[in-house]
C-alpha cells in the first residue's frame, strides 16, 4: 500500500514565523503535490513537483515555496506565516503523468493555525 506521511497533524505558529511542512511517500512516485483545504473551497493546488528539483506553481502559490531534494520528500515552506494561511494542508503523490494508474494518494493532513 502507498503511504504518504506528513510531519505533523497539528501545528500552531505565530505570525511572521518561517514554517516547514514535510511530506514523505514510500512508493517511488514521481509526482508530488501540496494542497490547502478550506471549507467551501475544496482542495486548491499550491505547488506540485514532477521530478526531483522540479516544481511548478499551482493555483495559489503566493506566500509559499517548495523544495524537493529527494524523490520521496516534498517540503512546503511558508516564508513568513500570516493568519490567512491558517488552513488544512494536504500532501499527495502519484505516478508519472501518462501512466494509467496516476490517481493521487493523500497524506493525513496538517492543520496549521497561525496566531
Amino acid at each position, binding site marked *: 500500500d502507498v503511504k*504518504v506521511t506528513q510531519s505533523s497533524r497539528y501545528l500552531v505558529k505565530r505570525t511572521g514565523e518561517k514554517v516547514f511542512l514535510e511530506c514523505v511517500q514510500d512508493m517511488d512516485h514521481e*509526482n508530488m*503535490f501540496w*494542497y490547502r483545504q478550506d471549507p*467551501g*473551497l*475544496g*482542495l*486548491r*493546488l499550491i505547488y*506540485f513537483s*514532477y521530478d526531483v528539483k522540479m516544481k*511548478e506553481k*499551482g*493555483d495559489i502559490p503566493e506566500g509559499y515555496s517548495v523544495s524537493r531534494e529527494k524523490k520521496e520528500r516534498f517540503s512546503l515552506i511558508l516564508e513568513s506565516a500570516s493568519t490567512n494561511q491558517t488552513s488544512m494542508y*494536504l500532501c499527495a503523490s*502519484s505516478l*508519472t*503523468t*501518462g501512466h494509467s494508474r*496516476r*490517481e*493521487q*494518494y*493523500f*497524506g*493525513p*493532513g496538517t492543520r496549521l493555525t497561525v496566531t
Partner: protein
Amino acid sequence: QQPVQSPQAVILREGEDAVINCSSSKALYSVHWYRQKHGEAPVFLMILLKGGEQKGHEKISASFNEKKQQSSLYLTASQLSYSGTYFCGTERNQGGKLIFGQGTELSVKP
C-alpha cells in the same frame, strides 16, 4: 477554472440513490473522483478518461460526457459508509495536475 459540483450537499436515507455532477468550462482529458470522510484524507474512487466511458466501483459508478465536459457520479442503494465529502478533480491535459471542485457533502441516515 475550478469545476462546479452540484449539489453542494445531499441527505439520503439508507438505500436511496444519489447523483453528483461535476461540470467544467474547459475541455478535459480526464476526471477523477475522490471521497473524504470526516477527519480523514481523501481516497481515490475512480478515473474517467475522455471518450465517454463509464466506470464502476462497488455500487458507485460514474460517467464522463466529453461533449458537455461533465462527469456524474452515481451512488445506488446508498450505505451509511458512503457518507463523506465527494470531490471531482479535473485534468485538462495529460499533465497530472488536478483542479478540484468545491466538494459535495453526502450524509446517509439510517
